């Protein structure tokens, strides 16, 4: 599919406004654009893990979802959509259903990297024809900014506060995209909001229309948890990509493809300095944290280049 911005914006939204997500939240940007990647004639069943997204978009008796939608629990979006997709195959096989349906599950990093990890791994391994989309905002935002295994090293969260003895999260971010790629699924990609969102849209379309299990990891910043002005979201995601903190890549049938290489890789401080959750790293005496963060980004980037055959 060739991305055409003018055509894309003309498509009808399958995710309605009027929901209760915060102004400037990254999650609805992810949801809206992933759903726009569905061919308009195709039906879909959407699943959401318990999350900010779920409680803000399906508060009885209102729903923002124009397609059939199921929320089950926090840790089982992978299994739940597996059940729906299996039901679809059962009904098709028995001649009880004509329409074409696609199956998409959404989870935050809590529901995906952590509590829903087993359910996701099971669904990916079984190879259901589905897409799992993680809107990764790097902490448990629904319960109030607690750390997850996706939270970056040194970040200040409410369960890893930047204290006088322990300065923020002590562990590195889990590389979930690579872990899902190791499941040998049909399509895996990492993306975020860049420019006119062609990267997100193109990858969402590929994920939805590649037969078999697919996984999209979408950096979807949370202005409250990351502590930057809401209107700066696209600056934050651009900095994440230009510093190589969040590279854009795909794994297609096991082949790693780098989608973007900055002409001049920016220092990680350009990304960190925009966000209050990293503010303590810039205090005098904490230079070692900035150095460590840079080393980690450099190492991850080098490893990615090797995987991509560079």
């Amino acid at each position, binding site marked *: 599919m060739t991305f055409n911005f003018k055509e894309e914006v003309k498509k009808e939204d399958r995710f309605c406004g009027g929901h209760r997500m915060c102004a400037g939240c990254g999650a609805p940007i992810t949801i809206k654009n992933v759903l726009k990647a569905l061919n308009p004639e195709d039906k879909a069943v959407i699943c959401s893990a318990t999350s900010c997204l779920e409680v803000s978009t399906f508060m*009885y008796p209102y729903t923002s*979802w124009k*397609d059939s939608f*199921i929320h089950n*629990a926090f840790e089982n979006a992978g299994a*739940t959509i597996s*059940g729906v997709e299996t039901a679809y195959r059962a009904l098709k096989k028995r001649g009880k259903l004509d329409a074409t349906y696609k199956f998409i599950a959404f989870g935050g990093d809590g529901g995906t990297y952590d509590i829903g990890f087993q359910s996701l791994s099971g669904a990916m391994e079984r190879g259901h024809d589905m897409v799992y989309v993680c809107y990764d905002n790097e902490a448990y935002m629904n319960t109030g900014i607690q750390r997850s295994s996706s939270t970056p090293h040194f970040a200040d969260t409410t369960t890893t506060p930047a204290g006088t003895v322990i300065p923020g999260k002590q562990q590195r971010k889990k590389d979930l995209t690579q872990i899902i790629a190791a499941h040998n699924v049909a399509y895996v990609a990492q993306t975020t909001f860049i420019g006119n969102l062609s990267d997100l849209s193109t990858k969402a379309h590929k994920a939805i229309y590649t037969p078999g299990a697919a996984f999209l990891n979408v950096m979807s910043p949370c202005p409250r948890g990351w502590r930057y002005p809401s209107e700066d979201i696209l600056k934050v995601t651009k900095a994440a990509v230009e510093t190589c903190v969040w590279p854009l890549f795909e794994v297609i049938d096991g082949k790693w493809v780098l989608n973007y290489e900055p002409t001049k890789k920016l220092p990680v401080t350009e990304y960190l300095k925009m966000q209050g959750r990293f503010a303590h790293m810039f205090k005098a005496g904490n230079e070692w944290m900035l150095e460590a963060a840079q080393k980690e980004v450099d190492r991850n980037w080098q490893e990615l280049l090797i995987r991509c055959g560079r």
Partner: protein
Amino acid sequence: MSIRERLSGNEAIAYAMKQINPDVMGAFPITPSTEIPQYFSAYVDNGEVDTEFIAVESEHSAMSTCIGAEAAGCRAISATSSCGLCYMTEMLYVAASDRLPITLAVSCRALSGPININNDHSDAMGVRDAGWIMLFAETNQEAYDNYLQAMRIGEAVSLPIMICQDGFITSHAIENIELEDTAQVRKFVGEYHPEHALLGRENPMAVGAYATPTYYIESKRLQAQAMLDAKQVILDVAAEFKKWTGRSYDLIEKYQMDDAEEAIVIIGSSAGTAKETVNEMRAQGHKVGLIKIRAFRPFPGAEITAALKNVKAYAVMDKADSFNGHCGPLFAEVAAAAMVAGVTTPKVINYIYGLGGRDVRVESIAHVFTELENIAKTGNVGETYRYLDVRE
């Protein structure tokens, strides 16, 4: 025309599943119910059913896939035991509150710890308030028959249903059984076509809302009503089943209760042993009887109480403990029902028995009846919270 066979309880359940040929099964193995998905996946792989079988990575996912599939408009089934049922617990509540009539076969087993693979009712009793209809079987035949009636009951009131039998005691023991003709089974069970579903309807459906205090309690009240309504449905389906097979079922079974002076209230396979005890003691002139509970959810409180009102003393037999320092779960419900009905003349005690597969013999039950006779004679109840056949 019935077919006479010899099957284990697990085989009987798997065979019923095969005859029904549901749309989706999601299951994860656990002793002693493992054979059910094993037999069933052989039916799938040999083309004897065209059910989609999902070999999930846990019981939690088994119930999660069933919820997704049933909400999609399919008949979804699973089977489990013990810790597997515990692990599903969160999802059992969701299945019931989403009003999804999933059918779950449970081969009851003790809970850890100590780890133990043998029978008691700790697993099923642990999820008794999850909102599921629960039927218990004494024999393999009853397990099979309950399963054939399950979907008719659950789908009529939009509640999930658990078909429980005793792990190993009936799940693995081979008994004579009468199987029904598959075409007749399918005719009796019928097709499932819910009005609303995620798939294949003109309108989309949304399942699993966030409900504020403005709506939550009304949704629970509707759920409670469905359980109340289930009682008559169980009786209606049983009546139709009797017309078809000649085998009759009720909410409870009364055995030698008409003139009984001492009685026990019991669930599951031990009722068979207890019936033998009743026969032996009756032959010696003791007026003893028993009540076997088939439907534990909805709880037949009025029926149990009515059957007990003329006895002098009775014991409620719990194959699980509530660890409340007071009584087991069945005792609490029977005693509450008796109090509500104003039936307070009979003396009543509670026995915790058979935990972790401790054998329940004719002598064990005879001991209970002897104790009840002493209580009836002396009026002295003594300790009401007792353990049977235990080394103190």
